[in-house]
């Protein structure tokens, strides 16, 4: 089960070597810059964990739904709405200096993400509308809502007309976890979510019901597991996690609302959920890898003038290789006389 993610990662590194060589860079130096250089100091490790946190949160939430065949691909939109709600709370309590502001922001963000995910859940359970398409369409709507706010009602009047909100007050920012780094409490929340995700899927009745609904929908039906509840649960958990990730982004180093909050963390989380085999522990490591791909892309751009779009290319390649590698592990290739065919392993 854990072989194909490793094979896929290896394959991405090989593809990386080829791409770097093709672009006229020394492939070994480029690979070093991309994969090793971004994590060779403790500050850099902090950055790695900082970037991994939102991806981890989103992926844990998505994986719960995917286990039950609830295909929420709109985590990016739920993250944005979470950031809007959490950020809105921060702006509303700009002058109120109590330690309750942060918890209120976190809850507002979670509720925002859940509300955004409730739209596909409602349309799927009530109107039978495909949740893949609805959740994806809402990503575009969410980013336009954010754009409306930072260009309009929430624009900082002293921000020289830039589309950005006021900076959040000190008490509305997540505390730093490790001194001398930018790593904040958001990472702790992500790790807690991983643990909670594992407990929910492995040890709780609803988690068990969701796994059954995913593995054998007919059996789940006969056993009286409500498919509507499965859809709602999958989307609500996904939305809450993504919303929390959104607050973590704006209450982290950024500290304000900007027109673009996430460089595609919600989409990267889809890849992470699969590469982590929909298992919380796998997702933990897969998010670190994904975070490294982001940091590596930035490092390659700064030090080697390689385009940072390499990151997106590697992300997509990783998932395709994973799906292909799965087949070679689940099935045995058998050479028969004349044509070779793929046969089910005994």
């Amino acid at each position, binding site marked *: 089960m854990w072989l194909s993610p490793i094979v896929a990662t290896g394959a991405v590194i090989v593809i990386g070597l080829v791409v770097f060589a093709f672009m006229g860079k020394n492939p070994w130096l480029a690979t070093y810059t991309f994969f090793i250089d971004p994590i060779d100091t403790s500050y850099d490790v902090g950055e790695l964990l900082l970037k991994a946190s939102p991806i981890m949160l989103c992926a844990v939430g998505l994986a719960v739904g995917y286990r039950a065949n609830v295909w929420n691909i709109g985590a990016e939109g739920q993250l944005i709405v979470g950031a809007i709600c959490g950020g809105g709370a921060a702006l509303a309590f700009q002058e109120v200096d109590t330690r309750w502001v942060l918890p209120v922001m976190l809850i507002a963000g979670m509720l925002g993400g859940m509300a955004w995910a409730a739209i596909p859940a409602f349309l799927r359970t009530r109107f039978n509308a495909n949740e893949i398409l609805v959740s994806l369409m*809402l990503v575009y709507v969410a980013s336009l809502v954010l754009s409306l706010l930072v260009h309009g009602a929430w624009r900082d009047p002293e921000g020289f007309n830039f589309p950005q909100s006021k900076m959040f007050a000190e008490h509305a920012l997540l505390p730093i976890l490790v001194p001398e780094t930018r790593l904040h409490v958001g990472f702790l929340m992500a790790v807690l979510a991983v643990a909670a995700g594992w407990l929910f899927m492995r040890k709780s009745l609803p988690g068990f019901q969701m796994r059954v609904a995913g593995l054998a929908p007919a059996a789940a039906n006969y056993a009286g597991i409500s498919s509507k509840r499965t859809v709602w649960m999958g989307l609500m958990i996904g939305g809450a996690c993504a919303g929390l990730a959104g607050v973590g982004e704006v209450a982290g180093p950024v500290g304000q609302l900007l027109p673009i909050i996430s460089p595609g963390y919600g989409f990267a989380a889809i890849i992470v959920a699969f590469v982590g085999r929909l298992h919380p522990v796998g997702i933990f490591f897969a998010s670190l890898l994904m975070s490294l791909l982001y940091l590596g892309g930035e490092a390659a751009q700064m030090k080697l003038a390689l385009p940072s*779009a390499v990151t997106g290319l590697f992300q997509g390649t990783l998932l395709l290789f994973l799906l292909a590698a799965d087949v070679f592990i689940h099935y045995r290739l058998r050479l028969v006389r004349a044509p070779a065919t793929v046969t089910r392993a005994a």
Partner: protein
Amino acid sequence: MDTAAQLVLLTLAAGTPLVFAALGELVTEKSGVLNLGVEGMMLVGAVFAFIVAATTKSPWLGVLAGMCAGAGLALLFAVVTLTLQANQVASGLALSLFGVGLSAFIGLEYVSVVIEPIKPVFGVNPLVLLSLLLFALIHWFLYKTRAGLVLRAVGESPQSAHAIGYPVVGIRYLAVLFGGACAGLGGAYLSLVYNPSWVEGMTAGRGWIALALVVFATWKPWRVLAGAYLFGGVTLAQFQAQALGVEIPAQYLSMLPYVATVLVLAVISRDAATIKLNAPASLGRGFHPDG
């Protein structure tokens, strides 16, 4: 030219990328394969078409390149899902994410390049006419030819088609490749005609809207055509309103196509029985001749 005629032409122009992509996906889905990678195939088609058109100075070679690029990406999907039997939903998502990354990567040096677009003939762009021709061909193929009947049979019951001796996997390969070429063509239309330039992510979700269109259309070609123009008209609203000087933030109008997609999808899907009756029965399910 009077305003009404101009509006019709503009709507045709805005709907055409959706016509290409959705008709291609329709044929793919009729064979029982769900390819969620349309957005990725469109983007890769758009970027390859643009690069080839910019380097060879021949937009028509660009169109060809866009089709080949879309089909190439579809081939990748076909190998993974049809030969290697991977999950179609996950693979399609992977294809879209891969296409977004790949197109952004290879298009970087062409972002501000200017090209000679394909010129309209008698006021209508040749690619718009091609899309109408494609519609007629697909309709004729699916419902009036034996090969079309076989394709639909493969989508309804691959086991039966296999039992009579039709090469199910081969037919599905062709349907997926055709869908990819059409998506690539839709992308090429965007980067060579509609908005002659290359911008990262320039499809802006049209691939996903095309997927939704196939569902709206309950898998019927003429409804795909009607739906595509309807959505073309909706995307047009944002430019028209600005031209008419309507005081409304641009973001509201930009939301329209996405909100409309969600609403129409909900209204059409509400009747689960109709969807079930019209959808190819084996849609999204794998098939292997050895069971």
